[in-house]
């Protein structure tokens, strides 16, 4: 086990991209955990100090109300990262389990699971979210993520299922079956590793999608309005700059976009390394 860990570490270390991705991710996680403790964010409006350029006092300049953009990103990171990661995780788990079981087991199970999946694909989200909003109060990121994931697992489940249909007739899976291995074992030990790169990219896209979609939930009234949520920061920046019509606000507009992009890039680079670490054939 420890040998495996050392191997893994060495592979990551050797792969420049993966290593830089890992470092950036570590910084993000550090920022989310300790950032809010290390500096305090003052959201008091200082209109004359709006759209300041980056300086030592304001690393990424200030927003439309003269508040520090960098500190807002730091403050928002805890909620944003947890929402992004949890939502992606839920999406992935639901999508993989339902898709894999459906594709692998087939028959009636497949029919029923795909029936449910198709319903989730077709039932409109607006009325459901409005009904949910009247019934529950979103209090924590986990619940927030769960509601987001409820709308994103279904397409993934279908994609996973279609891959399973092909995979399950491969020699090595047939061999496993002949050996009488249990379905969960085959799914998680044999099939999951085979799908890792595909799942990884879906995880990253789902995380990013969830961060952007969280703004939608806030604007429907499902969750309290949070101006430091990166998605909301982008939305506010767009509203106050018209997208491209306010040259003073370019840095402010670009900051949260870059921050979201950087997080995504770190994930992608990290997952590239992961692919190679987990899939020895790719190393050559």
């Amino acid at each position: 086990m420890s040998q495996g860990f050392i191997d893994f570490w060495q592979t990551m270390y050797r792969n420049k991209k993966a290593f830089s991705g890992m470092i950036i991710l570590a910084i993000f996680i550090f920022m989310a955990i300790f950032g809010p403790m290390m500096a305090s964010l003052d959201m008091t409006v200082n209109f004359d100090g709006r759209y300041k350029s980056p300086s030592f006092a304001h690393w990424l300049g200030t927003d439309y109300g003269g508040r520090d953009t960098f500190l807002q990103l730091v403050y928002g990171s805890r909620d944003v990262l947890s929402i992004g990661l949890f939502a992606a995780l839920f999406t992935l788990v639901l999508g993989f389990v339902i898709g894999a079981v459906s594709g692998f087991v087939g028959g009636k199970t497949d029919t029923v699971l795909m029936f449910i999946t198709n319903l989730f694909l077709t039932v409109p989200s607006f009325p459901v979210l409005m009904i949910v909003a009247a019934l529950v109060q979103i209090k924590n990121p986990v619940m927030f993520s769960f509601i987001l994931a409820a709308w994103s697992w279904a397409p993934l489940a279908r994609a996973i299922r279609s891959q399973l249909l092909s995979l399950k007739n491969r020699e090595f899976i047939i061999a496993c079956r002949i050996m009488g291995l249990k379905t969960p074992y085959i799914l998680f030990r044999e099939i999951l590793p085979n799908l890792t790169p595909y799942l990884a990219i879906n995880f990253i896209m789902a995380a990013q999608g969830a961060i952007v979609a969280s703004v939608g939930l806030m604007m429907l009234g499902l969750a309290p309005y949070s101006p430091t949520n990166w998605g909301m920061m982008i939305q506010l920046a767009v509203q106050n700059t018209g997208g491209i019509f306010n040259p003073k606000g370019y840095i402010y507009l670009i900051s949260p976009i870059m921050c979201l992009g950087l997080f995504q890039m770190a994930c992608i680079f990290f997952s590239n390394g992961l692919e190679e670490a987990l899939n020895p054939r790719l190393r050559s």
Partner: protein
Amino acid sequence: MNLLSGRKRLSGLCLSIVLGAVMIVSGCGTSAPGLVDRLSAGEVKDMQQPIPDAQIKYNKDKIFHVLGGWPKPPLYQGNPFGSGGTGDTNNRYMFEGLFFFIRSMNNVYNRLAESSEDTEQTTTVHLHQNVKWHDGAPFTSKDVWAYYRLNNGAEVTKYLTSIETPDDYTIVFHWMNPAPYPELRKLLLAQDLQGQIPYHIYKKYVDKADALLKEAKPLTDKSKDGPFNLDITDELSKKIALNWNEFTRAGPKIPVGTGPYKFEKVTTTDMLLDKFEDYWRPDAVHFDKIWIKNVPELSAQYALVKAGKLDWYDGTPPKDILESLLKQNKDLVHYRMYDPASVGLMYNIRNKPFDNLKFRQALTYVLDKKKLREIGNFYGQEYPKISMTGIMPSSLEKEVDKSVLDQMTDYTTNLDKAAELLKEIGWTKGSDGLWRDPDGKVPSFIIGAPNNWAPGVNSAQIAAEQFTKFGIPTKLKAVDSTIYFSNADKGQYDMSMDWVDVSWGFQNPWSSMRVLFWQGTKTKVGFPNVKKKDADGNEVDTGKLDLKLKGIDGKVYDIDKEMKRFPYVQDEQERRKIIDNLAWIANENCWGVNFFQNATGAWLNTKTMSGNFPMMDQIVQYNRDMPLATDPDEQLAITHLNHGFNSTYMPEEYWPR
């Protein structure tokens, strides 16, 4: 191979995006001189009079380009009262009223009415005689009569007993006894932007409505009101509604009005209107066509403005966008004007501790309105002293006596005063900086706001932060607008956002007081209603305001009674007294906070259009970014630019250049 071409396309695109972005930032100047250059060079002649066709340089087709909205085909139909209407922003070109009024001011002008005179119980209106409908039929008094008989819920009908048409061009409105005071009568009549419908098209429905009204008996119960003083029974009311519904579905396919332009064509994105050859004021028409575009995205609208593709645009973007647009297109000029509405927060007195006046006042002292305004709408105007008065703040000094204003509590930001008030009602501040209620609990409050209302959401967020920073944790909830209002009316939020001290119809202090005591503000604050026991002993809400409060003279007033008697008070001084008293009561009871009075604006493109631009002599000084006008004539001219504030055809004052 397609891969390679894909890559090439990609890099080519990246390059052009970068190039384009650079160009946008640097802002390519136009070669022709901008407005300020022209004015500085003394070139004002062409702005004072219409330009002969041969000399038109930039708008040879004589088309007036604007934005607008309408139900997209196949939803489009021609009855302005039909579902979805015909696009309210476009009606000003196709339809006219007897009078027109400018919403944020009190001015009423004649339009289809040539003149009018009042007696104690009647108002007689004389019509212009050469007016035609777009289908060629003459416009007569019958068309006015038809509107009020058919649309018998129009507010003014509650004050009328009958309408007579002694001849084709005379209408006599008979008022109830007592009658509203004369200025209010005119406002009530002018409120119907379009107080006429073509009788020759809708004869069937009008006659039916008239017959139904004739079935009704006169109203005996004075506490109720009905159209033309009639007692409309439930059964009759259903028949009238059904007839109205049939009328709304009766078409025609395209609008038929009396206005200067008639409908030519509509698609989902464009509408074309054509000059009406038989228009009764031919001198008012300088453009051959009006081309209305339907562009929903705000940023795409800015792009159109910046590119000079619109001759007129209604609205004021955030400060820095506005300045950047003016900088990049030297032909644009932007005018600002007061909105007869304020962005405000209301305390929900159904919830504890908001039922406590001192608590409400304490919160009000916490707010720093300047910051709320800067974020909500920079161009607005805050009034730090007041809480919420029921009167448009910019006209407080005009409508309320100075001695009364002096006796009002001053709510200017004062954190010490806020702390003092909280301590008085048993609240304590913990070492963590958070306030605790008398039971020792740290509260957590919610402000609700409709999600599609940027000034409200943005300023409410700042208010929540100011409360939180003071030690009263508060969060904002931006709620989908289709459920926000019913939630807020039911009292689901501790505080809720909406327009306050607002006048929806005509501007008149009574009109904004109605919003406070009878309408939107009432339901959000949660004023109690008179309750009655029905036959089975169940409590029934009568919907009638039950609010008795101490007035400025120390006597207790029944607010509902004061409001009801206002329209019939003929003496102006007495009316002013009622308003003085109600405004004072509202401010003292601190049911909400007027964050700031909103301001809006309009853009003109002076490259394609010329005319007597408002504030002409100050355009150079302010470099086309015009401040709020102080001169009443200029104010009027500017307010006239806003479609929401008036009902008239605007471009008659401008011409193609």
